[in-house]
């Protein structure tokens, strides 16, 4: 397994360099995981991508580096301490930094000679491919994905020149992943939505959710999806609800700040029982916080967002595969129960690309609008029923009229002030929870059955936690296992209760300051975590850090 860091200022093309390199590596058979760490600015500052690759599945990033590709001096200064003794730093000749491990190449000069200073990153890719014993097979195809047609040739040349001047340093290892996908969490969400029959996506740009909007915009014409940039997030969610009411499967996406503005309308979906999928790609708050960084601090917020009470589901995405399938499932649940379903992702998962088995869009069946209406009696949009689910017709599709109201309403959808109807309607809505409680997915159990310490996590820390369990069991004294939640609200309790009963120590590992999952578990089950590992500096915790903190101090 190798771990490379590509660093430089915003605007130096780190992202494209990393994207091209990782694609080459994956295509040659490696399992690849790339995470992206960047600042909230367009030019300057310090950004980096971490590319980890090997022949075995990689679930977590690592802070220990085998190589650094430094587009500026800051990268060397910031990261040299993470570099292995035997590692290398590839830098431009004009860097002033010095280090025994630094290989300077006049990439800027070469790029200028080639006629475009912006291709020096591609020269670096060429050098790296050679160093790692790769070939340039399929280069045209890879470059074609990221580079405009008119620049293809010069990039190809740059790649070849880099390749030519470098020397092989590592052996190519044979992996079996060349036919797998390399995809980020956000892209996987977009694909999952389309697979589920998305017809309408409205959103307002907001990091780190914007790439969902952009991915859908890029494929919307072909896929028959209207992708609309709203004037604000309030409009975004109300549009999605309007479209869904009218029969177009709909979704909106944002980050916490935008979600805050969607809170009222979330309740409209709940009250009017209009299916809706909302994704919150979390970033550190409060408010603007650290716009391009990661955190898991919206859990409690989204669970109780909006005045009053109504059923909802919250699903945390744990990895890129989850991102696809759980997005599909979210549409299913929203439709089957006529509820809002909230997906929680975060910047770490949203921007990180991982190697996953090609998605199977037929694996999840998405329900059609519930139409238990047999056409005999009067059509009642909110008919009382055993399971709380009422027949949903699409306006204009039959001669029956579909009335919805954000006021409390009777079975026909008309305003009521009756205490009796009110109580029955609340009960009807709440009854739906019993239904989807039965469909809850238990958390992922990771590690041996005979553990004594149980780690608890949710969402994107899945990878780091899984890897940490492995590390801890390698050289720790105890036996470690973990439960990582995907479905998080309502909280699935079976496995948790079973495993918690067996654990001597229970440690919640969360990317927030207050231990939100631990609180939810206390409320729902009475189970109390004995320790916790919390991180809230905007950087995703690594497996090593989890392991170290658990080993050292028995957690904070």
């Amino acid at each position, binding site marked *: 397994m190798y771990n490379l860091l590509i660093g430089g200022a915003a605007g130096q093309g780190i992202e494209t360099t990393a994207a091209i390199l990782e694609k080459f590596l994956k295509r040659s058979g490696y399992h690849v995981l790339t995470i992206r760490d960047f600042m909230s600015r367009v030019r300057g500052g310090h950004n980096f991508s971490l590319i980890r690759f090997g022949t075995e599945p990689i679930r977590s990033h690592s802070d220990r580096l085998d190589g650094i590709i430094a587009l500026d001096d800051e990268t060397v200064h910031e990261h040299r301490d993470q570099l292995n003794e035997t590692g290398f730093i590839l830098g431009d000749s004009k860097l002033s930094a010095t280090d025994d491990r630094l290989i300077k190449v006049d990439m800027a000069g070469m790029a200028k000679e080639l006629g475009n200073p912006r291709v020096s990153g591609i020269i670096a890719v060429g050098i790296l491919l050679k160093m790692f014993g790769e070939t340039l097979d399929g280069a045209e195809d890879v470059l074609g994905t990221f580079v405009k047609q008119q620049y293809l040739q010069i990039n190809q040349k740059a790649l070849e020149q880099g390749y030519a001047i470098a020397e092989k340093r590592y052996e190519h290892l044979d992996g079996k992943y060349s*036919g*797998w*996908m*390399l*995809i980020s969490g956000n892209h996987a969400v977009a*694909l999952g939505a*389309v*697979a589920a*029959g*998305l*017809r*309408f996506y*409205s959103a307002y740009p907001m990091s780190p959710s914007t790439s969902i909007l952009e991915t859908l915009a890029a*494929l*919307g*014409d072909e*896929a*028959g*999806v*209207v992708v*609309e940039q709203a*004037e*604000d997030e*309030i*409009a*975004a969610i*109300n*549009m*999605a*609800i*309007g*479209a*869904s*009411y*009218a*029969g*177009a499967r*709909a979704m909106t996406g944002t980050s916490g700040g935008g979600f805050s503005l969607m809170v*009222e*309308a979330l309740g*409209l979906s709940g009250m*009017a029982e209009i299916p809706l999928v909302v994704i919150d790609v979390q970033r550190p708050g409060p408010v603007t916080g650290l716009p391009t960084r990661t955190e898991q601090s919206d859990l409690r917020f989204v669970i109780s967002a909006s005045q009053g009470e109504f059923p909802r589901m919250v699903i945390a995405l744990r990895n890129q595969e989850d991102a696809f399938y759980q997005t599909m499932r979210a549409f299913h649940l929203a439709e089957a129960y006529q509820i809002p379903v909230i997906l929680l992702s975060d910047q770490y998962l949203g921007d990180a690309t991982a190697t996953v088995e*090609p998605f199977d*869009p037929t694996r999840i069946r998405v329900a059609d609008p519930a139409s238990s209406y047999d056409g005999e009696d009067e059509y009642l949009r909110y008919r009382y029923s055993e399971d709380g689910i009422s027949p949903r017709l*699409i*306006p*204009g599709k*039959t*001669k*029956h*009229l*579909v*009335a*919805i*109201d*954000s*006021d409390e309403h009777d079975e026909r*959808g*008309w*305003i009521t002030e009756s205490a009796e109807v009110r109580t029955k309607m609340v009960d009807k809505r709440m009854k739906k929870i019993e239904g989807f409680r039965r469909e809850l997915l238990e958390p992922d159990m990771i590690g041996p059955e005979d553990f004594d310490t149980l780690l608890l996590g949710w969402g994107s820390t899945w990878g780091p936690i899984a890897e940490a369990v492995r590390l801890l069991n390698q050289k720790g004294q105890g036996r470690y296992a973990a439960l990582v939640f995907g479905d998080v609200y309502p909280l699935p309790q079976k496995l948790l209760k079973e495993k918690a009963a067996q654990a001597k120590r229970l440690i919640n590992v969360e990317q927030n300051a207050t231990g939100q999952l631990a609180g939810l578990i206390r409320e729902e089950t009475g189970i109390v975590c004995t320790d916790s590992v919390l991180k809230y500096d905007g950087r995703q915790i690594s497996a090593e850090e989890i392991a170290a903190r658990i080993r050292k101090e028995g957690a904070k």
Partner: protein
Amino acid sequence: MSTETFCTYETAWCPGCGNFMILECLKTALEQMGKEPSEVLVAAGIGQAAKTPQYINANAFCGLHGRALPAAVAAKMANEKLTVIVNTGDGDSYGEGGNHFIHNIRRNIDIAHFVHDNQIYGLTKGQASPTSVIGLVTGVQTDGNFNEPLNPALVAIACGAGFVARGFTGHKEQLISLMKQAIAYQGYALVDILQPCVSFNKTNTFAWYNARVYELDESYDRQNKAAAMQKALEFGDKIPIGVLYHEEKSTYHQKSEVLKQGVPLLDRKTDPALMKRLIASYI
């Protein structure tokens, strides 16, 4: 004139309220246009005017205060076969919903927006709305309203609306005609309807409006934007009613690559072959 198709229900409005006339005109307009209830969607926010969808035999969407437009335009995007009409208040449309007002004009989606403009917040029992006149004393504006009233027609024209009209509940035939024109217009059509609120607006009464309004006649050139803005500014001793501005413009549906393909959005399916291609593009 029959209103059987879009038949009447009991309302919660005050006797004498201008809303009754708007409701009647709306039903009449729809009937005269030969619409079927099931092809009509009447959407609203929250307020007295916003109860309109509850009182007409059509599909009804009573969403959130201020948020009628985004839901309504999206419903139209989802199913272009629906005749989408927004009937809601001045507070709803221009206050809480002001941002959606200006930006949906820019989208130019084919809906009709009928604002019951009583220059007051009715349902919350009488506070100044964005269109309240200067000096109006209320429980909140205790020294009289001193914010410059919004001129909805003028703002709509300034934002690029292609159909902007002003109506009055006292001019029934004209109001029906304005509604029909607005519904027939391809694109976003605003009719700001002067509507007396007998309970809370003791300034802008039926008589107040009636003494001031005059119908624009044939001689008025509704296609001249500069003149229309001038005309819209007129809101004092004289208040012109009728179509203030008219311009043909391409609609959202005509411009959107997805929607111009002819199949209503809700009837489209995701092509499995496309899904395969998309997945393959990440390999």
